[in-house]
């Protein structure tokens, strides 16, 4: 596309900066001098995609490779889609402005189930056949990665390859192999067979799924030579692993417009509802020296005024103290703010508060997840009410009079008393504020409660559970609001219909590819956006394919059932998940990995075979 065509294309489009590229640190290579062109697609808007760390890592990594050019692609918003159609153009990459149909490999990162239709939508806009079987050559190979691939079955018909686990090292091997096969003019099938030998590379077409008459999976069989189960890939040592020296700095404001430094992977906690806490095991930390050095390098190369220390639970980083001390040395001099997302409420000390206040006061959000102690024990969110109240008081003392609390509705064993307990906990926090003799003067307290709907996820101890019916969730939401007696507590939630769909696709099987295809034909896209989401279309898609939403969302599975993702091995054993599920039913907690190993099996992924000394 020429600059002039771009100019015409963008006429009347909102936020043209989403579609123009040319940002600081974006990588432009000579397309005639590269062997492999990789279109890295994020199936959501530019603002969301550009906030995503995984994309930044792989973009830098691939562009570091000789003869490989990786470019960024985002989903065009509805207005831009119209313009593309008007000009007869497809989805294009921001660096070269070339249509993705011209690329060797088209990769999608799948961060949430509701973006599946956008993947189809983007392929379709560029005229690329949706089904893997209809793309015959090595050209336009469609690959996917991200947390959703831990159950890649619902998208199995569309993708050629799904990457399981962490991408940095397997990606290099994979692209290298592609380069060789392409140079030799090899066919797609022989390449896929060879690629399946790389750890973490799952080629769905090499596996056949058979079903029982009741719709449950009977068995998964592998074509000869393909591994079964397919094991995820992990990085052994984060200190020596690749990390970008710079980020593309967007011109327009994006959701997280700052430098991001990853401090560790995995999570020691073992909350039973949390998929990330299970599939990213085991915990691997970067040394504080590496974190500080990489963070400084990023700030220097981007000019960002803020750096976020990222992980699933940054206050669990064992070297937070020396890290912050070291970083404050240079961040204060360079006018850079440090932000700590994902703080745990029980690690929230006055000293820590003082350090983050020195760099930035941002809103405090505490994920309590359940209101009542007993239910927190069921889900293994080990937080004591006294600790919660004490930490809120610390926050008030530090001048934070608005606290945000995050809860889930529809958790296993949940009763109406549990729902009421959410409001009661909010009330206790309000009371605690007014009981403080030294409370901040002239300021009131505001407790904002945000409610999510529980979605049972694969590879978690709750993977067998039924999701609450939509009506039940709505009743619970109303019940909570009605139980409140003060305006100092506010409650908000997202549309729960979308959570039903999330539950379906999170634990779906291959038959759902048909439903996705049908939903796409009916015009479903941007399902994560309430202005685009249309449940009626989805209901029609299910009906047209003769499949039921309840079968996937609201059915409890037995331990004996073959689950659609059982052949995808994320290190944690099914025995561990069963054990944890039973402990949940008995409201027994499990210690965190640092205190005592719970024998989940993920240690086997490590070269030394131990996570901590206690393994």
């Amino acid at each position, binding site marked *: 596309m020429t*600059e*002039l065509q*771009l*100019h*015409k294309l*963008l006429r009347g489009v909102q936020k*043209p*900066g989403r579609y*123009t*590229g*040319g*940002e*600081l640190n974006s990588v*432009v290579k000579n397309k005639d001098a590269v062997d492999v062109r990789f279109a890295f697609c994020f199936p959501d808007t530019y603002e969301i995609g550009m906030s995503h760390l995984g994309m930044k890592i792989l973009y830098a990594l691939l562009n570091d490779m000789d003869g490989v050019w990786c470019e960024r692609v985002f989903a065009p918003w509805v207005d831009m889609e119209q313009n593309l159609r008007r000009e007869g153009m497809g989805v294009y990459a921001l660096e070269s402005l070339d249509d993705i149909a011209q690329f060797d490999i088209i990769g999608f990162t799948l961060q949430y189930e509701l973006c599946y239709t956008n993947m189809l939508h983007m392929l379709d806009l560029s005229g690329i056949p949706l089904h893997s079987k209809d793309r015959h050559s090595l050209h336009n190979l469609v690959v996917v990665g991200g947390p959703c691939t831990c159950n890649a079955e619902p998208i199995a018909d569309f993708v050629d390859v799904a990457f399981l686990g962490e991408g940095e090292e397997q990606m290099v091997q994979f692209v290298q192999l592609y380069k060789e096969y392409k140079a030799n003019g090899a066919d797609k099938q022989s390449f896929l067979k060879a690629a399946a030998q790389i750890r973490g590379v799952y080629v769905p077409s090499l596996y056949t799924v058979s079903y029982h008459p009741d719709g449950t999976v009977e068995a998964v069989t592998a074509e000869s030579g393909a591994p079964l189960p397919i094991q995820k890939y992990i990085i052994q040592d984060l200190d020596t692993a690749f990390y970008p020296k710079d980020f593309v*700095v967007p*011109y*327009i*404001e994006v959701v997280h417009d700052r430098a991001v430094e990853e401090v560790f992977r995995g999570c020691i906690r073992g909350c039973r509802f949390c998929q990330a806490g299970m599939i990213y095991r085991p915990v691997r930390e970067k040394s504080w020296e590496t974190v500080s050095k990489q963070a400084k390098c990023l*700030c*220097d*190369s*981007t*000019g*960002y*005024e803020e750096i976020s220390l990222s992980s699933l639970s940054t206050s669990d980083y064992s070297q937070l103290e020396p890290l912050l001390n070291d970083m404050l040395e240079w961040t204060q001099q*360079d*006018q850079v703010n440090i932000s700590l997302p994902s703080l745990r409420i029980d690690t929230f000390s006055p000293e820590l508060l003082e350090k983050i206040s020195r760099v930035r006061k941002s809103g405090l959000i505490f994920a309590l997840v359940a209101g009542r102690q007993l239910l927190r024990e069921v889900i293994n969110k080990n937080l004591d009410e006294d600790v919660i109240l004490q930490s809120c008081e610390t926050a008030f003392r530090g001048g934070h009079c608005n606290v945000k609390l995050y809860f889930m509705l529809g958790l296993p064993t949940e009763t109406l008393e549990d729902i009421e307990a959410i409001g009661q906990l909010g009330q206790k926090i309000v009371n605690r504020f007014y009981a403080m003799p030294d409370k901040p003067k002239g300021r009131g307290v505001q407790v904002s409660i945000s409610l999510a709907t529980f979605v049972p996820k694969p590879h978690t101890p709750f993977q067998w559970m039924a999701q609450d019916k939509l009506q039940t969730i709505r009743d619970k939401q109303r019940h909570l609001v009605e139980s409140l007696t003060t305006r100092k507590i506010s409650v908000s939630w997202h549309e729960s219909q979308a959570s039903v769909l999330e539950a379906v696709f999170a634990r779906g099987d291959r038959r759902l590819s048909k439903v996705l295809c049908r939903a796409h034909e009916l015009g479903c896209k941007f399902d994560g956006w309430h202005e685009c989401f249309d449940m009626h279309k989805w209901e029609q898609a299910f009906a047209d394919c003769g499949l039921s939403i309840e079968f996937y969302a609201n059915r409890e599975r037995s331990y004996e059932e073959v689950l659609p993702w059982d052949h995808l091995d994320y290190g944690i054993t099914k025995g561990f998940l069963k054990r944890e599920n039973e402990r949940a039913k008995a409201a027994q907690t499990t210690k965190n990995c640092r205190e005592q190993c719970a024998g989940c099996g993920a240690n086997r992924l490590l070269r030394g075979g131990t996570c901590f000394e206690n393994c």
Partner: protein
Amino acid sequence: MKTVRLIYQKTGRAKYISHLDLNRLMQRVLKRTRLPVWYTEGFNPHAFVTFALPLSLGYESRYDCMDFRILNDDLRNDQMLQVLRRALPPDIQALEVIDPVLKAKEVAFAAFELELTCDTDTAAQLTAFLQSDHILVEKRNKKKEIITMDIRSKIRQMEIIPTEDGLQIRLLLPAGPVENINPALLLEAAENSGCVFDVRSVVREMLYDKNMNIFR
């Protein structure tokens, strides 16, 4: 501490950067240079920068100015130009770093070059329209009321040059804090008169003071 002026071009894909976004970009560019730039005090410290004249989204500029303050008076302008060149994105090119001669509020005129595509009949129609004695447009005044204004009398200079596929129009228009006329007003009036054309590009070529000295 001294104030210095960066003169730069904003072309190509950089034309899609809005004024607000340009401000944020320049903060980051200055940080990348590691020059001893003066930061405002207070809760949210940022480099103190001012632009001579905001540019509309979608326009290119071949001569734009941004002022900032530097703590070290001994730094030479050509040294700063070197580091700024390296820190800017490809479509924003640093031309010069100078000690400011005029104040930002002294900007009085801007020269524009417009490229339009249209058929030959429309080109003739457009030319006639632009050369008529009065061109009435609706505009909001400072009190936000809609007023009708004769834009023809505001145009200091106009040159209309036929091109292969349309017209090139060169304009000298009032610009700056006293009076500011955006060429979009003229194009809108032409469209309202029934001319059908495509705007291929709008480029702001130069800034002047009231005596037609180049703004420096």
